């Protein structure tokens, strides 16, 4: 599958963006257009997932996938936290922040995985969109709790104070996060509208999807490579972890997915969700809740290393593991 992956236009546009940034081209996608594409992609996958669940109905698989996803979202950061402290030599604050990123998910990695898997005849279930939305935020809570529990320096006490002060603010942000609302909302609209109601809006949301994904991945390639080139603080240990953690988390995800009885396609996607690291919802939350944590570390790891790794290798790897286990 890796070769088919590498000749798919979607992946090739990502590589083009990565390459352009590496040779320091001035190619860039206007930020509002990139945000517009991400809104479009989230609305589209939410709708498609909802329409599919409308026709299959709520199944026990759906329920177990949701529970598994949330549980993994809460627990993966614990594993990540201790790896980051011991092997990565990061302090408690930075470890907590990075761990939160790896426990959460990357929407674009998910979307790309669904596209590639569908092309390989391993179409994941529609409800996995809902699982993804559920997995966006639990890790933020675990990451914060770990950071507070282990951070002992005075600066951190102060931080803990500020964080508590804005505690309710954070909880609110976690629950009303724009991408969660949009994904869940579009999912619900898809369920209410069903196949028939989806028909008139299908042209935009279904037919244009792949092409928009190409242009969005072009931008993500540019951003990932630029982030990678700016990352002065990434040690060899951290770079290694940024590849090892997705492999580990992804394998756990596929295994759990297979155990709870998901089809290989859905199990692979659960693996991809576990392997992927957030670079939208979590960074913003971390900047607010733990301003001392260094964005140079968490963005470089999640966006600069883990994201390209998953797009180019990870998805194929978890598909292979899912096929092997399933």
């Amino acid at each position, binding site marked *: 599958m890796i070769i088919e992956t590498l000749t798919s236009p979607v992946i090739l546009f990502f590589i083009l963006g990565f390459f352009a940034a590496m040779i320091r081209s001035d190619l860039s996608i206007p930020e509002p257009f990139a945000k517009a594409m991400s809104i479009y992609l989230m609305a589209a996958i939410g709708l498609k997932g909802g329409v599919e669940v409308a026709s299959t109905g709520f199944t026990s698989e759906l329920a177990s996938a949701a529970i598994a996803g949330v549980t993994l979202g809460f627990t993966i950061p614990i594993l990540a936290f201790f790896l980051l402290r011991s092997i990565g030599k990061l302090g408690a604050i930075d470890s907590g922040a990075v761990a939160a990123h790896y426990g959460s998910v990357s929407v674009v990695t998910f979307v790309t995985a669904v596209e590639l898997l569908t092309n390989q005849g391993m179409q994941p279930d529609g409800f996995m969109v809902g699982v993804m939305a559920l997995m966006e935020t639990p890790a933020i809570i675990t990451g914060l709790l770990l950071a507070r529990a282990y951070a002992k320096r005075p600066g951190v006490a102060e931080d803990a104070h500020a964080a508590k002060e*804005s505690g309710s603010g954070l909880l609110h942000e976690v629950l009303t996060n724009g991408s969660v609302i949009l994904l869940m909302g579009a999912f619900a609209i898809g369920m209410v509208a069903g196949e028939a109601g989806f028909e008139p809006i299908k042209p935009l949301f279904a037919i244009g999807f792949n092409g928009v994904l190409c242009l969005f991945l072009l931008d*993500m390639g540019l951003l990932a490579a630029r982030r990678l080139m700016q990352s002065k603080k990434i040690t060899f240990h951290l770079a290694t972890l940024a590849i090892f953690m997705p492999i580990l988390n992804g394998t756990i995800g596929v295994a759990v997915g297979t155990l709870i009885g998901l089809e290989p396609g859905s199990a692979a996607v659960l693996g991809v969700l576990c392997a992927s690291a957030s*670079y939208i919802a979590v*960074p*913003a939350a971390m900047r*607010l809740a733990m301003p001392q944590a260094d964005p140079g570390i968490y963005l470089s790891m999640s966006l600069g290393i883990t994201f390209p790794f998953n797009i180019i290798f990870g998805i194929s790897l978890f598909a292979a593991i899912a096929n092997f286990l399933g």
Partner: protein
Amino acid sequence: MVTTVQRKRIEILVDTPLVPRVIRLIKDVDISGWSVIKIASGGGRDGRWDHDEVTGAAAKSIVLMIANQEKADLLADKVAPLLESHGLLITIGNVEVVRGERF
């Protein structure tokens, strides 16, 4: 000729996700208003940074206020403890304003 009075022009450079926290401080010291300007790109000790990202986490803004000396001092005191941990930057300059009683 219109009469003008001297007031303070305060700029706080801050990560965009932290703007709401700065605004809370502004309201605490009872400054009447503020305006936010987006920074397009920049660079500092960490090297060149470009604001061209889907993830808004690295975006920066300037919060601009006009206030009297007293409120400016209060705000500086409030902001000072956050400067290091939040990576803020605050500058206070003098300007003449018309209808100064509003600030």
